[in-house]
């Protein structure tokens, strides 16, 4: 009678560990050291409730582009930090897509408090497009103050995503 209960208990104890088993894609495409290092970051990200798929994709990108293991590990670690800062700025309710977009914005030089302000101005609506457009404007060389002001104005007015996307087309 106790065997099923023991089995259930074992599943309880080790189930999450099984779920955290190494991502097959990493094991198949990366050298063991790099795969292990990336998997460690993926597990840490899951524990910290950060999106994990961007980390896997960053590693696979490096593999496809012929980067060394050391370079892949550095790139994934940097992205992990950016995801963490984005999560801290956008809050626990932010979606994975918002956090991922936020990490890209931080990478492009957008300050964390700018993301926080955008969250406040556009509360309850997706930030993926506004953050992405802000990132694109910064990447393309728009002066930061002008980029922030343009995006903030649209967010404050509750404008739709298409209006944000149209900002990229203006001279």
């Amino acid at each position, binding site marked *: *009678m106790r065997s*099923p*209960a023991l089995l*259930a*208990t074992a*599943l*309880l104890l080790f*189930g*999450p560990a099984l*779920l*955290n088993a190494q991502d097959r*894609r990493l094991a198949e495409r990366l050298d063991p050291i790099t795969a292990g290092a990336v998997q460690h970051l993926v597990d840490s990200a*899951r524990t910290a*409730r950060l*999106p*994990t*798929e*961007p980390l896997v*994709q*960053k590693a*696979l*990108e*490096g*593999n*496809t*582009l*012929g*980067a060394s293991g050391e*370079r892949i590990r*550095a*790139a994934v670690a*940097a992205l992990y930090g950016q995801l963490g800062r984005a999560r801290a700025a956008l809050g626990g309710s932010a*979606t*994975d*897509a*918002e956090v*991922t*977009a936020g990490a*890209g914005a931080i*990478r*492009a030089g957008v300050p964390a408090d700018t993301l926080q302000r955008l969250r406040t101005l556009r509360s309850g609506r*997706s930030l*993926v*497009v506004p953050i*992405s*457009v802000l*990132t*694109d404007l*910064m*990447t*393309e060389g728009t002066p930061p103050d002008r980029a922030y002001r343009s995006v903030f104005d649209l967010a404050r007015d509750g404008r739709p*995503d*298409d209006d944000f*996307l149209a900002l*990229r087309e203006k001279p």
Partner: protein
Amino acid sequence: MTFVQGDRAPEPADETLRRIAAELRRPIAFDATIDTAALQAIRAGRRSTGRRGVWPWLGAAAAALAASILLAVVPHRDPAGGPPRAVLLRLVAPASSTVTVVGDFNDWNPSATPLAPSGAGEWTVRLRLPPGRYRYTFLVDGREWQRDPTEPPAPDDDYGAPMSVITVS
């Protein structure tokens, strides 16, 4: 009249009392089917008590495991909370013999998403992507990385190849 344990009742004086006393002294015997039914009920009760002892454990374990799975999987399943949208990628490369695209949407697999020639040297592929932001680049003739000139450049080039980024709303 008070009886104390161990005392014997007095012998009845008349026939009626004697018959009553005899009836009372006769051992009580239930119908045999009642005994059988009672024993079956007792046995069934024991078995069901045993099952109740296991099933709550199994149920709790299953619920906890299901919760673990949900916690581990749900946050990564629907990152933006929207349905996939059709996206058309295209590249003008008239002198090329093959064009493929690699990106965050196909595990950066060069053979997963080939573009097809659509005339006038243009290559296209139609994808369905959930809302989000995706980095990608084209691989031309299996050897040249070329970013999409119609979409913004990605802010990061960790590995030295030109990248574009597309935002799906």
